[in-house]
Structure formats: C-alpha cells, structure tokens
C-alpha cells in the first residue's frame, strides 16, 4: 500500500485517475517571485556567531555559513551561504548534515596505540608527542633496513591538504606514495587534457552560457551540487540536455535525449558520434584547420565507425547516435560535462580522449558556453610537480616505484602528479616481490574498504610490520593500525580552496569554526611529522605559513584572505589565440604525439571491457550479469555512514535490478541478495527498476565488510598507460540470500 504522500504524488502527476483534491485558482504577485536571490540580511540572533567557510563534504567545496553558539562554542547548524556568487546559497544533503562531524560521539579524540593483536580493537591513549615520535622512529628504521621504497605513504581523496602529503612522501624519499583514486579519479582526464590541449584543466563546462549540454559519466544531483544547479538552470532556460548513462539517473530522468549504452562501451559511442559529425560535415572547419593537428587521420580512423557499428557494440540505437551527434554538433555553443565515471573504465584514457575530440572538432573549446581552459586567481597551485617536491626524489629511486614501467601516465614524470600504481603496490606488500614493503602511513583513506579487490588489500594490511592511520573515526582501516591519530574535520580548520570543481572563477576560503581539543589538521600533522623525519627544512614553519606562501603572488596573507572570503578572476576566452595550445605542436592534438611516443593509441580505439558477455563468454555462462556502480547524494566514498540524518535516507546498501531479471531469480523489492564474482561476494538490498537493461545491475560502493562491492572487483588487467581498474563492467551473478 502506498503512503498518503506517495498516493498524492501519483495523483498530481496524473498517474492515478481524477485527483480528488480540488484545484483552487490563486493569484500571485507580478514581482512576487524571488528565486534564491534574497540576500543575506544577517539579522544575527543574539549569542550566535556565523562563521563563513566552505564545506568539504566533497570537492565541490560549496560556501557555507556555520552557526556557532558564542557561549558553548557548539555548532548549531551548517547552511549554504546565500551571498556566495558561486552557489547562491545552495547546499547538498551532506553539507547540511555536517554538524554531526563535530558532535558525533564516535569521533576519535586522542592518539591511540595498539595494545592487543592487530585488528583486535585494544587501544591505549598516548600523547601526540609519543605518537609522532614513534611513527618517525618506525619509518626511519624501516627506511634504513629496506630502503625508501619499503615504505608506502597512502592517502584518500583530496582534502585541501593532500598535496602537502605528497610533498612529505617525496621529501622523505618514499617513491611508493599515492591515493586510492588517482588512476580511477581525475588522472585520466588530466592526462587527456594535457596531451590533447596542453592544459591542466578542461573540465570546465560553461553551462551558464551554453545551448547544449552533453552530460557524460556524471550525475550532478547526486555528486556535484553546484553543477546540478547550473545544469538545471540551463535546461530551464531552454538549453538541450543529452545524457549518457547506463542507468536512468536523476540527470537522465530530466534529459531531452538519454543514451543508455552497455557499461564501458562509451568509447565506441564517442567514435560513432565522431563518424556522424565528420561524415555529415558538421564539424567546425575553421577551428579544425587553424587549431588542430591530425584531423585527416581521425577522419580515416572513424570511417568504419558507423552508427550501425556503434549500435552493435553499445546497444544505443543508430538513430539515437545520429540524433545525439547532430544535436551536439549543430547547437552552438555546446559543452561536455563529464566527471568521475569517465575515469573508471577499462580504457579510461581513450574514453576521455574521445569526448575531448568531440569538443575539439566542433570548436567548442575556450568559448563562452563551451569547455573552457581555467586557471587560478594568481595563487600558487598545489597541483604541480614543484609543489609536491617531485625533485626531492633521487633519480635512481624513481624507477623503483611500483607501476613505473607499465603505467607511465600515472607513475612517471608524464603523470600530472607522479604516484605508484596501487594494485601493483598492494601485491608487492603481500608477496614481498620484487622487494619488501613493510611500513605504511595512511592519511584520510579507508583503504580496507575503498580499494577494489578489498580481500587482497586486507591481506596486505595484515602483512605490514607497521601501520599508522590518521582519520576522524575508527574505520576498518584504522582498526588495523599500530598507531591511530585523530584528524580534524573541515569545520575545524583553515584552508585555501582552489579547484575547478568548486568554481572556475573563484578561490574560496575555509575558516575554522569549531575545535575538538585533541584533533589536529592533516597539514599540521604532516609538517610536524616532516620535522621529526628530518625533512622539516623542505616544509614551512606551520600550516599558516604554507597558506601564506601559496597566496603570496596574490598579495594576501591567509588571515586577509579569510577575511575577504574569496578571490575572483573573470573567465578569459580563446586564450589560445595569444599563446597557442601548450602541446608539442602548439595545436589541439587530435592525433596525440605524446601518446604515440609512449605506447598509447594516438587516436581513440575501442576495445571490449576486460569482462563482458562478448569478451569473456565462458565467464558469462556462470556470471551472466554486468555490474556497474553509482552513488547517491548522501555519501561520499566510504564516508557519512555514521551520520544519522544521512543514514536515515539510505539505511542499507541498495542494488538496482531490472524487474525481469529479479523475477527470474525470485527476488522481490527489499530482499537481501548476494552478488558474486569469481573474486568475491557482497550483500545488498534489492530495488527494482526499469531504468536499467535486464542484464545490468547497479550497486553502490562505499559500504564496508560483507556489504562492500569492492570485494567483487578483480585485478587481472588495467587500463593501458595509466593502470585504471575497470569498475563498471564486472560480470557477476545475483541470488536471494537464503532465509531472506
């Protein structure tokens, strides 16, 4: 039986006959409509401080107001900042629920030393001094015994401090450093931007000025609030919305045209679209002639990539392929809005490249309403080889980095920020081949949950002689540690946030609003640890000094910047007309000379996913379903499961299944099911939807233990050049848990 609310919603949408509620005409004021523009009139209630900061529940870093009780110092609530020129007051569920971060009783409140067996959960509190000294002592001893390659410095997703952590690793000589994500988050796009456009970032889709949005590999309402508002505003203004997604996501549900490819066949879809645009003469002749190289080779290359060919591979009808290509190419300006999912495929670099080429041949580069090359507001970027101290490493050590030979675009100087290849690194920890890795330092990463092939990672964690973990909570990863350090949350720290995911035109200040007495910010811990490891000379006095240094060229100190709240620089268009593209040829390299030299396909080539019914037919006999993954707006990675308001929204890990498939397996909505692959198994709760193809299921990553989809994902093959783990085309089977 439907709830009253649901019945009402169905009636409103005409899904039930004859709404029984009476429509009453009402009149509204001509000037009565006010949309999100009511200014912050700061009628500050007595006894409340409003601290202006920026949320870091994800990389969007939306500007917020943190309401703090003056007497108790308690955070009362977190809200969007209506005066923010970037967000205009918008904030997502995660940000709105963030006060739990400072009041959750499960927060770590003191450094801990393990007293029982590893993972047994027995701890004794120790002082910061003791904790940091003993970490330094262990790391130095390990370095002396096994060499700098014998220590892994690992981290999670960027939190503003992340690059100073890379700097610590490099200053210490630890070539085996890096993050869970990089090969499957952002790095493929950064490499693509660099080799194709010679630009650090081209992830900037100018929705505000566009007429057409091709949204590919991202679902903004779930993961990118600022972008969600921009896309919705553009759509309501009349811009066309084309969405590519194997699942009828929230964004796909609002699309004018939704393309539903088989997971990880996007490169084929892109090639077929390129074919249509080139062979129907819809490309921008002038831009192509003046500003690109290799177009003729591309033309030959996609000659046989017909819509019919594309349909055979992707399952998107040839009519829809033609329609999407024509709308995108004929509507000017048009932008491509892509994000994480383009980095998670077996052919990540090729997938990224094919979308970039669509933008390039239609001339939608660096123009209003297209994809723009963005920069900083003058502050020093942390995303450089220089800032992370790549030059601190000894030349003879660098080739020892795990993955160095195989994945040059991740692990060598060709990488946006050179890092180890994590699956290769974990295998080395387990096997001791080709050399032992005995100690690890993990900051802001729930490695035991967040890596693919979790079973293997757990095995590796058990093999370590020493593990120190810095986090907010006692995660399954921290539980494996010898020493655990309590880190501050974003409400408890200052920071300078400069990211294309936040704003193309603003650098944003994060301002400390609360304090947990024993918790320290990651940068503070990193600088302190650097000193104890004997590399303090490569760092700043303290974190304020580091931010002062980064802001130096702008003329602001950290304090002035925080008072000012944000820095602004207007967008510049067609910057290439002045200085060319910073590629070897000075033009957009449709045919990539850098890829050609380094063993990657210079023009995008479609290959079948590592696992698919066509590629692995024997596997498909036993494991006939294709698992892909997606997120919901309440959690980021493994975070927020302890937040009661967010957990209420999604109490159990869902898996979406087509009704027909569920029916065949005797699965009903709400049933607990088991998903299995040859690598592992996990459990989830079934949700039925016709928004998937019958042989595709959609799971949600980030849950721990039995419920972790990462248990299912193997490490047999990786994306050429960069080492991405394929996460969107995993052959699996599903059954109802007995007794469920």
């Amino acid at each position: 039986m439907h709830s009253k609310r649901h019945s009402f919603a169905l009636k409103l949408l005409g899904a039930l006959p004859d709404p029984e509620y009476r429509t009453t005409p009402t009149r509204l004021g001509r000037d009565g409509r006010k949309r999100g523009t009511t200014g912050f009139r700061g009628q500050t209630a007595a006894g409340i401080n409003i601290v202006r900061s920026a949320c870091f529940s994800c990389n969007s870093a939306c500007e917020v107001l943190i309401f703090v009780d003056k007497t108790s110092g308690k955070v009362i609530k977190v809200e969007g900042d209506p005066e923010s020129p970037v967000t205009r007051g918008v904030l997502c569920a995660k940000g709105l629920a963030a006060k739990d971060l400072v009041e959750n009783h499960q927060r770590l409140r003191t450094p801990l030393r393990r007293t029982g067996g590893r993972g047994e959960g027995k701890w004794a509190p120790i002082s910061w001094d003791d904790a940091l000294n003993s970490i330094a002592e262990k790391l130095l001893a390990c370095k002396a015994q096994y060499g700098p390659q014998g220590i892994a410095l690992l981290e999670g997703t960027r939190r503003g401090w992340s690059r100073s952590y890379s700097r610590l690793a490099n200053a210490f000589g630890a070539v085996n450093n890096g993050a869970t994500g990089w090969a499957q988050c952002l790095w493929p796009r950064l490499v693509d931007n660099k080799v194709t456009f010679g630009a650090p970032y081209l992830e900037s889709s100018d929705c505000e000025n566009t007429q057409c949005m091709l949204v590919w590999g991202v679902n903004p309402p779930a993961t990118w609030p600022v972008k969600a508002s921009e896309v919705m505003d553009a759509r309501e203004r009349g811009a066309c919305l084309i969405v590519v997604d194997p699942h009828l996501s929230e964004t796909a549900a609002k699309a004018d045209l939704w393309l539903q490819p088989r997971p990880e066949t996007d490169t084929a879809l892109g090639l077929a679209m390129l074919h249509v645009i080139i062979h129907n003469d819809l490309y921008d002749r002038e831009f192509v002639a003046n500003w690109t190289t290799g177009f003729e080779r591309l033309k030959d290359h996609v000659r046989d990539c017909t819509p019919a060919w594309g349909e055979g591979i992707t399952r998107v009808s040839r009519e829809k392929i033609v329609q999407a290509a024509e709308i995108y190419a004929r509507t000017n300006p048009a932008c491509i809005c892509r994000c994480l999912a383009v980095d998670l495929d077996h052919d990540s670099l090729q997938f990224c490249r094919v979308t970039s080429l669509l933008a390039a041949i239609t001339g939608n580069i660096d123009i209003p309403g297209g994809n723009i090359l963005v920069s900083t507001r003058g502050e020093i970027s942390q995303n450089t080889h220089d800032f992370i101290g790549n030059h601190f490493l000894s030349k003879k050590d660098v080739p020892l980095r795990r993955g160095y030979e195989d994945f040059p675009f991740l692990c060598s100087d060709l990488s946006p920020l050179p890092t180890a290849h994590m699956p290769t690194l974990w295998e080395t920890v387990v096997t001791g081949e080709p050399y032992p890795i005995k100690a690890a330092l993990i900051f802001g990463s729930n490695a035991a949950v967040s890596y693919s092939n979790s079973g293997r990672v757990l095995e590796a964690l058990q093999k370590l002689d020493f593990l120190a973990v810095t986090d907010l909570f006692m995660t399954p990863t921290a539980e494996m540690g010898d020493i655990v350090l309590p880190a501050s949350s974003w409400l408890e720290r200052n920071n300078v946030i400069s990211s294309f995911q936040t704003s193309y035109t603003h650098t944003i200040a994060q301002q400390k609003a609360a304090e947990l007495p024993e918790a320290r910010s990651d940068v503070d811990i990193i600088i302190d640890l650097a000193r104890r490891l004997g590399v303090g000379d490569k760092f700043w006095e303290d974190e304020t000094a580091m931010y002062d240094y980064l802001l130096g060229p702008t003329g602001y100190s950290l304090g002035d910047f925080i008072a000012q709240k944000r820095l602004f620089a207007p967008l510049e268009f067609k910057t290439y007309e002045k200085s060319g593209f910073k590629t070897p040829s000075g033009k957009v390299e449709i045919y990539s000379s850098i890829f050609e030299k380094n063993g990657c396909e210079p023009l995008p080539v479609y290959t079948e996913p590592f696992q698919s019914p066509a590629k692995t037919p024997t596997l498909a006999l036993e494991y006939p379903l294709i698992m892909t993954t997606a997120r919901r707006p309440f959690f980021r990675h493994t975070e927020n499961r302890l937040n009661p308001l967010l957990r209420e929204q999604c109490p159990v890990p869902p898996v979406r299944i087509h009704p027909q498939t569920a029916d065949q397996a005797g699965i009903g909505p709400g049933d607990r099911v088991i998903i299995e692959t040859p690598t592992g198994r996990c459990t989830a709760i079934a949700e039925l939807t016709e928004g998937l193809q019958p042989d595709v299921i959609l799971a949600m990553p980030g849950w721990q233990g039995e419920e972790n989809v990462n248990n299912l994902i193997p490490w047999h093959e990786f994306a050429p050049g960069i080492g991405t783990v394929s996460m969107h085309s995993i052959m699996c089977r599903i059954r109802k848990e007995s007794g469920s």
Partner: protein
Amino acid sequence: MKDSTTEHTVYLIVDLDRCWGCRACEIACKQELGIGTGPRPVRIEEIGPRKINGKLLTDFVPVMCQHCRHPACREACPTGAIFRAEDKSIQIDFDLCTRCGECEPACPFGVMAHTEQYGPVKCTLCISRRENGWLPSCAQHCQGRVFTVAADDSTAPIAPGKKYSWSTGRVIYISDKWSSLGKACQNQ
C-alpha cells in the same frame, strides 16, 4: 492602496520540472526545525521509472504541508492549537497543543508527523526565517531551485511561466509537463 496584511501572505511555488530528487530540502528542513531521525516534514516522492509515450520517466515530487485552504488537521485538533497565521500559513501553537495526536491521521497528505519526542511536526514555511529576511531553508538550499517564495497580490496571473498548476492552499505545484495539474489561472 494594498491591504497591508495581504502583502505579507506567503505562497510556496514548487516547480515539478526542476526537482531531481537530491533530498537537500529534506535535510535542510530537519536542521531548521531541529529534529533528528524520524519525522520528515518534507519528503521527495520518487515516481517511476514508468513508460509514458514510449519514454521512460522518473519524476520527483516534494510533498510537505500544503497549508490548506480548509485544513483537516485544524478541524481535527480538539484544542484549537492549529491555526492560520497572519501570513496565511498553518502553524501549531505548542502552548495549546496537548500532544493528543489527532492531527496526524487527519491529514490527507500524510505530512503531519506525531512523535513522542517532538509532538506534532510539520512544515512551518520557515516562518521565523522569513521574518528575518531569509528564504525557507528548502528554497535556499535546493539544487534544482525548485521552490520559489511568493507574496500575494491580486493583479497578476498565477505561477507565470508555466502552463499548469495545482494547489489546495498556500503550496502551488507548477509544471509545463503535467497537464493533470490543471490549467493555470489567467489574469482575470
């Protein structure tokens, strides 16, 4: 001269075409009302996916107190604790409320929650925020910018810019897509 009281009456316009179910409104509302888990004064109902004219659609409908013209909750309340405020929104006077719970089943929309911890809980149209010049929390934080606050005036057409509208009180649903909502009222 306008009647000064009508200048202050409030409407909440809900644009169904703009809602994509991010649930920011749900958390924003709870935070504003200071309630934890349990009651959900505004809730997004997800309808679909279902096939209409060969196209798969999923729609999202934020459902909250409609601030009805003829509120069933007010009629059910034995102590008169539920009242129409000056801005025409429906509010609860907690000094009069005896926490009898009669209002919860009376609401035809299922948006009145009655819990031991909080007593009756429902959307207040953020009356105290508006008094201080802030938008209702759902309206401010919504990623789709679904909600618009409007003031009453007797000279203009309802919900300009959209074809269809539906209302039973102070909340007005509008859409270009859902003709089931009924026709917009033209300027009379």
